[in-house]
């Protein structure tokens, strides 16, 4: 087991390195530097002071040199400071990461919680009304543009009905609430964003589960289980579902990049200070340190996520020996 883990970790490093290399050069393709953004067309700042500023931040050096400077700092886990307001990139990301991960975890739970039963039931009652209705409903949710749904949801639940808060993650006098009050408040704020972000994901997972379930139900060992006289629901829960759900775990691993990068749109609509929003602003203001910092963290978490998914999959499926070629 351990040498499998070691091999995977060693495998991660080139990938991480590759991604940072590509993104560093892609970003530097674009015209304009952060210093331009800051002192943009401001007559007070003369041309030569703008060049001096560029030196200050090291933008005059060729791109690959900048990359090595940046890389040497990253190795020491120093992400540098954001050009916008001089704050450490690590702090800025640290503020936003928990919010995004929190929301995305909830939406993953919601996605799997809703999609798997739909998928399994759909497969068992193949072609029944339930199957047809859920399939079209699930595709309906997949095909709705998320920001349109978001705004409709807010104006209906938030404004007309007034049940849920409109945006943000905490209400105004949050500080004065009791601990329990705080939890309830945050929960009420998160209901809409989580639902909207997870609507798209349910279609993919439920369709995938349904196909796997149908395949597994045709397997011979299911027929053996029935021949052993096991009741139908036992056969399904003990044998069918367990075999069908294993590949679904790897799918969870693949969803992480989308989730961690945060749904920029729902963060904008629901006014949630998340990673997605941070990245969009960073891109517009050419905040290289912040963009690269966020890329490294998002990529690292994605690799870790995929790795964890593989481990869980290997634990569930005894056929996969760690590393040995069967």
């Amino acid at each position, binding site marked *: 087991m351990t040498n499998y883990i070691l091999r995977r970790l060693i495998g991660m490093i080139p990938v991480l390195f590759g991604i940072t290399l590509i993104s560093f050069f892609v970003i530097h393709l674009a015209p304009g530097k952060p210093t331009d953004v800051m002192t943009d067309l401001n007559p007070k700042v003369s041309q030569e002071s703008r060049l001096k500023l560029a030196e200050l931040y090291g933008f005059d050096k060729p791109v690959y040199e900048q990359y090595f400077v940046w890389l040497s700092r990253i190795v020491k886990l120093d992400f540098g400071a954001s050009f916008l307001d001089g704050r450490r990139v690590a702090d800025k990301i640290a503020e936003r990461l928990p919010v995004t991960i929190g929301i995305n975890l909830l939406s993953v739970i919601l996605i799997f919680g809703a999609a798997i039963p739909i998928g399994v039931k759909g497969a068992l009652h193949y072609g029944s009304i339930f*199957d047809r209705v859920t399939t079209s409903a699930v*595709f309906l949710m997949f095909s*709705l*543009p998320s920001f349109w749904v978001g705004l409709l949801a807010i104006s209906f639940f938030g404004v007309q009905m007034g049940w849920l808060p409109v945006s943000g993650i905490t209400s105004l006098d949050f500080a004065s609430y009791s601990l329990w009050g705080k939890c309830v408040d945050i929960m009420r704020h998160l209901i809409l964003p989580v639902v909207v972000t997870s609507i798209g994901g349910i279609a993919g997972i439920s369709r995938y589960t349904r196909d796997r379930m149908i395949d597994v139900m*045709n397997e011979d060992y299911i027929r053996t289980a029935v021949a052993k006289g096991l009741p139908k629901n036992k056969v399904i829960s003990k044998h069918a579902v367990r075999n069908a759900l294993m590949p679904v775990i790897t799918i969870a691993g693949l969803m992480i990049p989308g989730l961690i990068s945060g749904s920029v749109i729902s963060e904008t609509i629901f006014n949630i200070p998340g990673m997605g929003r941070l*990245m*969009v602003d960073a*891109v517009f203001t050419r905040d290289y340190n912040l963009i690269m910092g966020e*890329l490294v963290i998002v990529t690292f978490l994605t690799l870790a996520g*995929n790795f964890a998914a593989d481990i869980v999959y290997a634990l569930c499926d005894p056929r996969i020996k760690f590393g040995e070629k069967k």
Partner: protein
Amino acid sequence: MKPLITFGFILIAALFVAAVFAPFIATHDHTAINIKEAYLPPSASHIFGTDSLGRDLFSRMVYASRVVLMTGFVAVGIAAVIGVVLGSFSGYFGGAIDSVIMRFTDMMLCFPVFFLILSVVAFVTPGILNIMVIIGCTSWMGIARLIRAEVLTLRTKDYVLAAKALGRSNVYIVFRHIIPNGLGPALVNFVFGIAGAILVESALSFLGLGIQPPDPSWGNILLEGKSGMGVAWWVSVFPGLAIFFTAFGFNMLGEGLKQFFNPRLKR
């Protein structure tokens, strides 16, 4: 599932008809601005009503269907070509080629694709073609992995060995035996991909990086309608429904194709 698939097929056919015969179907010149007729509700003269500049929404939507279809097909076309080629070669030749291609695919999969699209689109002038190319170049990984898995099984099939025994070259085998049989699942993925590409375009338009006015696209019409939701519901409802039905249609088509290629699903 038969009715749903045929329903999906009809939707796609309707979309194609709208795109091809746009000039005939459109009731008005979609670029005609008429401030006096701004925000008119749907009526006999304007089937879908008018937008903030008084342009007929129905005509703009019909012309936009061309842009939407192009975005979908070109973007996913690029992704399919890259995916199929890389997938087949890494699956068929295996060894060093396989591990290099697969490492690269894993890397691209971990890559926060939306940011790449964001950064590139933000820096390159957001025209229709750029968006399609970018969406295409960042969504081929799924197809590549799928094709690689297919090719791995096809490679061991007896008719491939028989062809080798008959002295046929590797290239012949790949293009005559491997790819035709591998195309089935790729086609399914292709169709689902189109639905995805359409949604990505509408998301990009939301951030202002999608297809830029005055070229109409459902994304930017929807965005325009977003702020006027209270006043002119039709400016946002109709493009939203259009996106929904198109994506829904393609998904159903994909489901149908999947059952066609994997008979056991039909059972």
